């Protein structure tokens, strides 16, 4: 009876099954005044008052079984619609599968479970972490940039063939390296990558707010190209690889595009051009830890 009290769908023509617990609800629950019954037969129909008069609070006149008869619940038996049951029965996933087995004395096939029981139950709830847990590949590493390095900062390169040169910082690339330019006409440093750690950031900044850096300048653009297919084995391997680096036309045009924008801004600051042309050096009595950059 409890299951059938809760109707699923309303069967047409039948009176709308009243609220589940009219017996327990207060008699004042009656929904009077719903005269739309004639129009909407599927909608909520007028609820009957409680058929179980109250003797004292919480105690009704009739027993459960008497109420069953009085409410004519024997007439109001609802079953869940069949379609859902049928659907669920069909949706049951396969538990086993038969697979063919080789060898002539093994019988042709085995019945194999698709979802197997775990082969190991850990003694602790928290599963053991893989050794490589928390170790991300390089491409997923977090890139940091020192607060003192912002676009337009003058940097002093410390390593590489351009060591000691003062250079303008443009942006940080995806691998974390800094994209930097001389500009070329000032100190012969082209658009180049520099490593954050091998650079001193000075407090001198150029306003590069409106400068548009082409989007194709990425790490792949700057990466060194190496031939990896020595045709001759132990013959002339060293010759085939690129010895001489040739400046491509694209590099020249990119350099021009970026530098023309920056040079205009450099000219506005007095003496900055000469500053960028000069190189940084230490001499007697000059101690890096005492210098303010």
């Amino acid at each position, binding site marked *: 009876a409890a299951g059938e009290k809760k109707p699923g769908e309303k069967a047409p023509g039948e009176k709308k099954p009243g609220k589940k617990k009219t017996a327990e609800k207060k008699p004042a629950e009656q929904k009077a005044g719903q005269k739309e019954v004639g129009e909407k037969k599927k909608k909520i129909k007028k609820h009957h008052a409680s058929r179980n008069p109250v003797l004292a609070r919480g105690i009704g006149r009739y027993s459960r079984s008497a109420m069953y008869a009085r409410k004519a619940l024997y007439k109001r038996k609802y079953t869940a619609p069949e379609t859902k049951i049928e659907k669920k029965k069909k949706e049951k996933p396969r538990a086993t599968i038969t697979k063919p087995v080789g060898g002539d004395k093994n019988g042709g096939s085995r019945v194999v479970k698709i979802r197997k029981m775990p082969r190991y139950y850990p003694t602790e709830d928290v599963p053991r972490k893989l050794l490589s847990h928390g170790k991300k590949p390089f491409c997923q590493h977090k890139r940091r940039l020192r607060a003192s390095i912002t676009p337009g900062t003058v940097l002093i390169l410390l390593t590489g063939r351009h060591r000691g040169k003062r250079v303008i910082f443009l942006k940080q690339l995806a691998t974390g390296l800094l994209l930097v330019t001389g500009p070329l006409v000032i100190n012969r440093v082209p658009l180049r990558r520099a490593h954050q750690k091998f650079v001193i950031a*000075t407090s001198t900044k150029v306003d590069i707010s409106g400068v548009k850096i082409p989007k194709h300048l990425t790490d792949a653009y700057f990466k060194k190209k190496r031939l990896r297919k020595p045709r001759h084995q132990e013959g002339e391997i060293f010759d085939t690889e690129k010895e001489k680096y040739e400046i491509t036309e694209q590099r020249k045009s990119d350099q021009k595009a970026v530098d023309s924008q920056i040079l205009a801004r450099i000219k506005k600051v007095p*003496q*900055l051009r000469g500053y960028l042309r000069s190189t940084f050096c230490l001499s007697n009595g000059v101690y890096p830890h005492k210098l303010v*950059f």
Partner: protein
Amino acid sequence: VFKRFVEIGRVAFISFGPHAGKLVAIVDVIDQNRALVDGPCSGVRRQAMPFKCMQLTDFVLKFPHSARQKCVRLAWEKENINEKWAATRWAKKIEAREKKAKMTDFDRYKVMKAKKMRNRIIKHEMKKLQKMSSKKGKKPDKSEKAPKSEKGPKSEKVPKAQKAQK
């Protein structure tokens, strides 16, 4: 031999310690090593201070020993010690040292260029005068006086330019 003495009212410069760089007036002497000291206009509370960390200045104030802070302050402001101190070479040297320490890399470059230019000008003039004197032979006075007068205005120009650029 000694010109500056520890006396009541002597203004001293504190060279090290928590109040390094400030001026104080000696109010009283406690014993051989310490003095009661007060710096109302320089942010030093009245306290005992060892003589070792004080360096005597040329200024002396007039107030009786153990005078209270109000009196010290009055005397200080009457003598206008703060302004007088700022005008001394001592204070200017300190200020110049601080500025030099704060120079950025770009400033250092600008100073280098300014110095270079100044030295070139001086050398140029020197050479001119030397030539003149060697040609004319008997005019040592002119060659000595002229470079001094030229160094003067130039030396004023360049430090001003340096500080303005800093």
